[in-house]
């Protein structure tokens, strides 16, 4: 016990020091990124945050079935509004993408990373004035656990063996194995803290939580009106007095509403009308490269993709920049067959960089003992936006290397049930994961639930287990760097591009650097932004 306590304080101070340094590096990087992608609004960058005013945000995928139950949050409407604005989790993804303390004032682990202790901030209150207790945290986690759970976050909490209270403010999680990334997991928007019921379980139906804003009026699928939480635990925040979220599914209606001033912010601007919006002096476009990425995934367990040289030939036979320019109109970033986005901790850019190279493609075909190659590529518009155009361009590129790609247009409905993980070569839209470990564990380890490339690599699997339980940052960097290299060289995922979150907002709104992991400033725009 004492041992654990000792390691706790040591770990905490270390964690804070690194987080500050990381924060600095992240901000500098973001500024550079901002400069290259969108001209930073000078006024927004200069004006200091101030309180007051109200704002209307438009989100695009709410339904009348949306509820306050955190187990059911699937769309960005519920995740941004309920997860990011109504509630808090123990930790949050800060603007640099690091897991920072939120409801917990600190966290620490045992040496083997199996036992994690989170200490709640003192004096936390729910919107109704009730104090937040350790029991609320425990019940909030149990809400997603158990064999009969149908929670969207069940897989995340499956590794939790036990949760218990330690005193008034400490919550102790025991995991089935060491996991250095547990604080990231605790930042997931489903794992928010809501009031526990006396009979067990949590009382989510009232929509009472700890977030920067409390509910004034909620009409599922239509909109939510919220007001500032005067007891919020972050000093000074939030800045707006009132925020309103409006559900506008149609992108033209959203754009018009922004142009007529009925809303101040719209998510997912239409890339086809972006030029027009950019010319409007009242409107700022924000382009942020998040974790989301697009792949053409090859099933490495069936011919011809079971031959690494065939995979390599295809990786060299695609002109990624051409696809980004023509199919995405420049609104994406080239990827190098590494699904780990550059802003994720321990990300590397493996060499050699895979670019369009017909000679290399032919060379690898010859190595595979082939003179020509014909493959079917299954895509649909749901595979990822403009996937069909991207596939047709790929067909043109590959033809020059003697590779014939038959683009098979699949039905949109049921694409994820009947095509993905069933056909050998398919387009896939990945929302991404904030850590190497969660990404590899869910998608690239042998037998992982979404291992759509059926890729099995013994060395990779061993490194994965090692990296997860490794407390030393330098060693983890080495391990994850090596894993990304293996994936890049041998894996079945042709990672084409990282998507950009493209949002448009009125210049009335000011903001600092925007978080580059999840959309809407890592879901917390209502808390972090203010009126200029």
């Amino acid at each position: 016990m004492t041992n654990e306590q000792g390691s706790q304080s040591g770990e905490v101070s270390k964690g804070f020091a690194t987080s500050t340094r990381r924060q600095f590096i992240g901000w500098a990087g973001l500024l550079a990124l901002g400069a290259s992608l969108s001209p930073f609004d000078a006024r927004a960058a200069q004006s200091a945050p101030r309180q007051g005013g109200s704002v209307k945000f438009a989100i695009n995928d709410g339904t009348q079935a949306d509820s306050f139950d955190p187990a059911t949050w699937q769309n960005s409407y519920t995740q941004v509004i309920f997860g990011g604005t109504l509630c808090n989790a123990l930790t949050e993804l800060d603007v640099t993408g690091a897991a920072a303390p939120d409801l917990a004032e600190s966290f620490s682990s045992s040496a083997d990373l199996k036992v994690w202790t989170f200490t709640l901030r003192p004096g936390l209150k729910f919107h109704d004035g009730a104090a937040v207790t350790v029991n609320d945290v425990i019940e909030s986690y149990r809400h997603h656990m158990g064999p009969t759970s149908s929670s969207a976050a069940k897989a995340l909490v499956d590794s939790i063996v036990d949760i218990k209270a330690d005193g008034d403010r400490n919550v102790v999680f025991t995991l089935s194995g060491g996991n250095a990334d547990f604080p990231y997991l605790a930042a997931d928007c489903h794992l928010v803290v809501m009031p526990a019921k006396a009979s067990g379980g949590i009382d989510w139906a009232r929509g009472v939580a700890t977030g920067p804003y409390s509910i004034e009026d909620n009409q599922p699928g239509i909109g939510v009106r919220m007001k500032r939480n005067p007891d919020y635990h972050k000093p000074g925040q939030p800045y707006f007095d009132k925020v309103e979220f409006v559900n506008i599914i149609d992108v033209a209606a959203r754009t018009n509403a922004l142009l007529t001033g009925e809303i101040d912010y719209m998510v997912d601007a239409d890339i086809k009308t972006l030029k027009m919006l950019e010319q409007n002096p009242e409107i700022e476009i924000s382009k942020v490269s998040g974790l989301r990425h697009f792949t053409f995934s090859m099933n490495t367990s069936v011919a011809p993709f079971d031959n690494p040289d065939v995979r390599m030939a295809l990786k060299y036979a695609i002109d990624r920049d051409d696809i980004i320019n023509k199919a995405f109109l420049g609104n994406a970033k080239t990827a190098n067959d590494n699904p780990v986005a550059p802003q994720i901790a321990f990300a590397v850019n493996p060499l050699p960089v895979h670019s369009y190279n017909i000679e290399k493609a032919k060379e690898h075909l010859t190595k595979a003992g082939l003179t020509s190659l014909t493959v079917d590529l299954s895509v649909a518009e749901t595979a990822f936006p403009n996937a069909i155009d991207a596939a047709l361009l790929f067909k043109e590129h590959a033809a020059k290397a003697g590779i014939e790609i038959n683009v098979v247009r699949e039905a949109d409905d049921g694409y994820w049930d009947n095509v993905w993980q069933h056909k050998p070569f398919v387009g896939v839209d990945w929302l991404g994961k904030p850590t190497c470990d969660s990404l590899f564990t869910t998608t690239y380890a042998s037998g992982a639930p979404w291992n759509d490339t059926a890729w099995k690599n013994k060395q990779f699997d061993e490194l994965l287990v090692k990296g997860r339980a490794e407390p030393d940052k330098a060693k983890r960097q080495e391990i994850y760097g090596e894993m990304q290299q293996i994936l890049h060289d041998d894996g079945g995922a042709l990672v084409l591009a990282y998507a950009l979150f493209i949002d448009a907002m009125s210049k009335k709104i000011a903001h600092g650097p925007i978080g580059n992991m999840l959309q809407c400033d890592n879901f917390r725009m209502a808390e972090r932004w203010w009126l200029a």
Partner: protein
Amino acid sequence: MHSPAITPLARTVIARLGSGFVTLFIVSLIIFAAIAVLPGDFAKVALGRSATPETVANFQRSLGLDRPVTERYVSWIGGALKGDLGLSFSSGSGTPRTVNSIIGPRLKNTLFLAAIAALVSVPVALLFGIIAAIRRNSWLDRSLNALTLVGISFPEFFVAYVLMLLLAVKLPIFYSLARITPGMGAIEIAERLALPVATLCFGIIAHMMRMTRAAIINLLSSPYIEMAKLKGTAPWIIVLRHALPNAWAPISAVIAFNLAYLIVGVVVVEVVFVYPGIGQAMVDAVRSRDIPVVQGCALIFATAYILLNLLADVIAIATNPRLAHPR
């Protein structure tokens, strides 16, 4: 021994009601079957791609999707007969959300929008139709004809966007969003609904007006109208007193058709103007695969169509008693 005159009419109405009910039953079967064979697993869509097979199985069990199709149909239709459309898939543990509570407010909004559109469009369409018929082949008739042809030819979303661009973005007179919230004043509601109502009227006035014109012109060549003309009756009186009563059958049919369209077919307008009506509710439900809500909406749509057509039939029979004696 002569039965009262009302009996054949009543008998016909009852027969029509019966056939309407049978139609509705067949439609309910089709709705259920069509949704049952849709590709894609509902639990998987509802839970997202991150769902594990275990969560999917838990979810299906909690929704009763593991029961056989026939059993599910019988319990659904049995409930629907009692006015209970079942529970939405979004019902969480311990907090049942009925389909009625989800559709109810939306249906009210749609009926409200439809009623306003009907109040504006029906009198206008009748008036223009009658004027066009009286002034047949005059410049007025021709220009009304041309205008309505244009109205019918443009798809709704195009009209909606053009109106929005002109009257909300370029000339900020009206709102581009038709979001009405409780506690809003009548004037603001009117301002907010102006563009959607105009869009709806644009399409249906044309249809109803042309039908009215055709029906009246058709009658104006009948011998009894000739007789009235010879007696020196004014053209207005001829149309209103002699032609119109006999034109109600085709006119009521086209009005009923358009009213049904206002309830069933306003999805595009609701989506474009972000009006919280039942059309948008159904689109939402299809996207989130909330099947009980989809089924409920489809059933309400079918009922609206059948009821309104029934009403048109009854009006036709009432104004033309010959129809009450089918050969």
